[in-house]
């Protein structure tokens, strides 16, 4: 995963670095529940919950310019909306990894 440049994001949004760190922390907290809901939905093939969980993560990530996360959640949301039988687990793991990477920064 690419290293996220928080200062660049802060500059882009005209935020202070502290602000962007605060929003990111909040995003990570929200993601815990959304990721839990997502894996459960994958296991039970609950496409609606899968779509809404992906949509929620996508919405938050897009505001703070986390483009890789937006890209993968948009893909999950679209496939879940269309009820496509794609490899959701693989996408989930990638997403989880991206979020974990953020947490480590």
């Amino acid at each position: 995963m690419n290293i996220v440049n928080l200062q660049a994001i802060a500059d882009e949004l005209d935020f202070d670095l502290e602000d962007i760190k605060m929003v990111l922390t909040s995003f990570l907290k929200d993601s815990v529940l959304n990721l839990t809901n997502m894996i459960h939905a994958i296991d039970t093939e609950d496409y609606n919950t899968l779509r809404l969980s992906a949509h929620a993560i996508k919405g938050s990530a897009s505001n703070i310019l986390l483009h890789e996360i937006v890209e993968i959640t948009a893909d999950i949301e679209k496939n879940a909306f269309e009820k496509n039988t794609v490899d959701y687990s693989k996408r989930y793991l990638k997403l989880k990894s991206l979020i974990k990477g953020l947490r480590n920064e």
Partner: protein
Amino acid sequence: MNKLYTILYVEDEKSIQDFVSVIFKKNNIKNVTFSANGQEALHLYKEEKFDLVITDMFMPIMDGFKLIQEIKILNPKQIFMMVTGLENKDDLIKAIELRVNFFIEKPIKPKKIMSVLNESFDLIAQKKESELARLLLSQYKHSIDNTALVSKADTQGNITYINTKFEEISQYTQEEIVGKNHRILKHKEMPDKVFKDIWKTISAKKIWSGVITNTAKDGSTYIVDSTIIPLLDLNNNIIEYISIRHDITELELYKNSLQKQLDLAVSEVIDTQKEVVYTMGAIGETRSKETGNHVKRVANYSYILAKLAGVSEANAQLLKLASPMHDIGKVGIPDNILNKPGKLTPDEFEIMKEHAYLGYEMLKSSSRDILKTSAIVAYEHHERWDGKGYPRAIEGENIHIFGRITAICDVFDALGSTRCYKKAWPLEKILHLFQKEKAKQFDPNLITLFLANLDKFLKIQSQFKDNI
């Protein structure tokens, strides 16, 4: 931009709430309440008023669409902003159908949300101004309705509205009077020209103010101080007329009563003055064996001759009151001279002539018009047109018109009256004297007028005949 407007922001993702909070904080937007779902937001809305509701579309428990529907039931005029992606057109159409006022596109861009927020604040400001204007209007209406009679009329003058106060004073109900012309209230004593003036003024888009006497339903009279204002549309055309009236009936009645009392008092003062003047005149005449009716006749002759000579009504009246005093100076002449049966010696005549000056001296210092006029008459009624009179031997029009008039009237009456020491002259002899003395003793124009209107003077003579 008023940054103190209250905002309810409904968003289930805490990270988005935090993200928006940073934007609002940086832009000094205060008074923002966050809620995590529609149900909680609705509960908050019932507790508190918000100028703006911003909501996400999709949330657990109650989504944004349902929340908007519920709030619209409580307040159809609430202003909404919806945060939305553009993926699903059906959701957008649904939001438009719910009359959502503003949309924020996801992802939320700080500049974009502030721009839309500013637009929404402008709308809130307009709404508040409009609400305030309505509130003020309602308060103005309330205050006017409680103090004045208000009516509205169409461009033809037909009544379209009356308030309760109008109903109370006119005794007509809305149902009875709406559709009728204002003429229904016209009082018989109100001149038509007043109403023509009203129409001329208000048709020219000007305000008319004045006092109108009206007739109530039971035929009684009420008086109103009225202001009629034409109401104009944006194209400056008259839409209707509004009339605001204050009932001044009691005030007018009181004013009339005071005026009557004042008129009576003034009349009494004038009557008293007249009586005093007649009495004083009579004193002078009595001392010289004249009768009380002499002064009355001279007074009336003087008035008629003054009017014939073109003197104003007010001055002719003044002369009528003043001329009886023409011989008041005789009170200062010794009895042996004043009442001497035979002809006066030159010295005695000189003393006799002093009565003109004495009368003037007695009256000249008064500030009352009647007495000032009396002073002139006393001083100048023995002057002659040819300048051979006394006491100053002035001539022609240098002699005051009042003096010239009284001279003729006094001589006419003195010669025409019988006294214990003399008989009355026949009229022909008097007229002959007047012709002879025209432009000598008397003003020729006044003699001409006198002779041309002799019948009027003879009528007075007959009316105030002496009882001998």
